[in-house]
């Protein structure tokens, strides 16, 4: 396997673009990534495009706008992990020596559904009985509160931290701080989760260009190396499951750290899948940033804020940026690239050398998550 590096990154600010087509939302992100890489569009040998609800051939619809056509364009659906999966698949082709330069896109337009909770597959048994994503995370939260003494204040503080970081990110939807009291006073969605515990919906796109590490030197003085790539599906279970422990993330993180030859203590910052505030706390533990049951303390000590030991979601996370689901995986990677390059201004994590992205996808009963993809990057 060859070493792989990211040479270009781009994204459009996440927001509400009801009046734009999916292609019109996405092409500026792609153009930005290609220009950032300084690569000729004709040098791109393949494209992997992740979208969950964008409809058929999203990649072709986007790339015809920029005339990047006549190459393999592969569209990938894997719920909220669609574009982290696309990145992983693209990485495999470059690492295996099949292609030298590949474009990865993540895109979603959720405003076409008119708001509300994420539309899930109605053939699923639990969905057919009223399961919605906030309820699933709320049940995780309640069980964790019961077993580990977590409080509603602790969960609210995740949103407070996320919004604080979001103020510094011009690509985030929410750029205003909130207080714990405002979080707790926001309208109930799925008790104990309130509106401000939930990521906003929205539209968005992100893109990166990856190359073999050898070729990357041609394009970038500061290529960002991919030092680990991992994907897993959840294990289907019909009976008891401990909902306080996201096993798919635990398994994936263990595998990834082994592959990369580093440990959680070597990670300088992480972008994790905080679709709901409780999730971020569970992932501190699953990714090894703290021991089981210690997540609230890690947050309260400021260790996961910019300036702390292991800043998590310096971008503001999904809670500030929003979660146009198919775009999220690549958008997380764009943030890590910018952080490792030192381009993040006020939210810059000082001397960041190693970054992690973590993206899950759910909505199918019997799984903790249907998919989880984790990546490690280094400068």
């Amino acid at each position: 396997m060859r070493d792989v590096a990211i040479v270009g990154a781009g994204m459009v600010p996440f927001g509400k673009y009801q009046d734009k087509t999916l292609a019109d939302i996405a092409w500026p992100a792609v153009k930005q990534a290609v220009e950032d890489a300084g690569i000729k569009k004709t040098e791109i040998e393949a494209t992997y495009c992740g979208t969950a609800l964008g409809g058929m051939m999203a990649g072709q619809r986007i790339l015809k706008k920029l005339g990047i056509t006549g190459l393999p364009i592969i569209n990938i659906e894997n719920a909220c992990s669609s574009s982290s999966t696309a990145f992983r698949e693209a990485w495999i082709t470059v690492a295996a020596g099949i292609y030298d330069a590949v474009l990865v896109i993540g895109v979603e337009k959720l405003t076409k559904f008119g708001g509300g909770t994420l539309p899930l597959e109605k053939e699923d048994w639990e969905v057919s009985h009223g399961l919605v994503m906030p309820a699933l995370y709320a049940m995780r939260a309640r069980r964790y509160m019961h077993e580990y003494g977590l409080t509603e204040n602790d969960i609210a503080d995740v949103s407070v931290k996320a919004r604080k970081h979001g103020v510094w990110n011009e690509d985030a939807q929410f750029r205003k701080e909130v207080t714990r009291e405002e979080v707790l006073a926001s309208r109930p969605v799925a008790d104990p989760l309130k509106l401000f515990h939930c990521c906003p919906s929205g539209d968005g796109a992100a893109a990166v260009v990856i190359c073999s590490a050898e070729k990357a030197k041609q394009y970038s003085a500061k290529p960002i190396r991919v030092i680990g790539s991992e994907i897993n599906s959840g294990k289907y279970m019909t009976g008891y499951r401990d909902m306080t422990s996201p096993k798919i993330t635990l398994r994936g993180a263990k595998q990834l750290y082994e592959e990369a030859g580093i440990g959680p203590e070597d990670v300088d910052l992480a972008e994790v899948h905080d679709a709901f505030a409780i999730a971020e706390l569970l992932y501190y533990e699953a990714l090894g940033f703290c021991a089981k049951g210690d997540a609230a303390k890690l947050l309260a000590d400021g260790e996961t804020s910019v300036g702390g030991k292991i800043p998590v979601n310096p971008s503001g996370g999904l809670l500030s940026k929003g979660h146009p689901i198919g775009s999220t995986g690549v958008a997380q990677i764009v943030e890590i690239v910018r952080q490792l390059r030192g381009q993040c201004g006020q939210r810059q994590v000082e001397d960041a050398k190693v970054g992690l992205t973590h993206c899950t996808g759910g909505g199918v009963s019997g799984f903790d998550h249907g998919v989880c993809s984790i990546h490690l990057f280094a400068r």
Partner: protein
Amino acid sequence: MSEELQEALNLAGDAVTTDSDGAVRLVGSECGDCQKNVFPPSDVCPECMSENLSPIKLSAEGKLYSWSVVHAAPKGWNLPFIAAYVDLPEDVRVFAHIVDADPDTLEMEMSVKAQIATLGSDESGAPFESFAFTPVQKGDS
């Protein structure tokens, strides 16, 4: 099975039945080869891939694992509702609504029992129903 109950089963289909004493029972599948239980019913065993499955009536009572009072859901559901996971003794976890309960009185691991309940209504306004669980009152079972 009574006429009334048949009308009530539109969401759960074959996955629910009633005993002669009126107790509502969920129906899953039991694998004839590895004895794994699954719910809802399936034609194939997720453990050993056997197709030798037969219906199994699951216990009417289970334990509440977690719950949430849901205020946001697609059109049709009666809001708010209490969503829950209930663990049945046959090592089957069931997603269900909790009905006829004050959410403030719910407790982890409390006993709940199956019943039929109206959960919402379709676009024409016709109610839809399915199984749900309700807390077992002391001295009840």
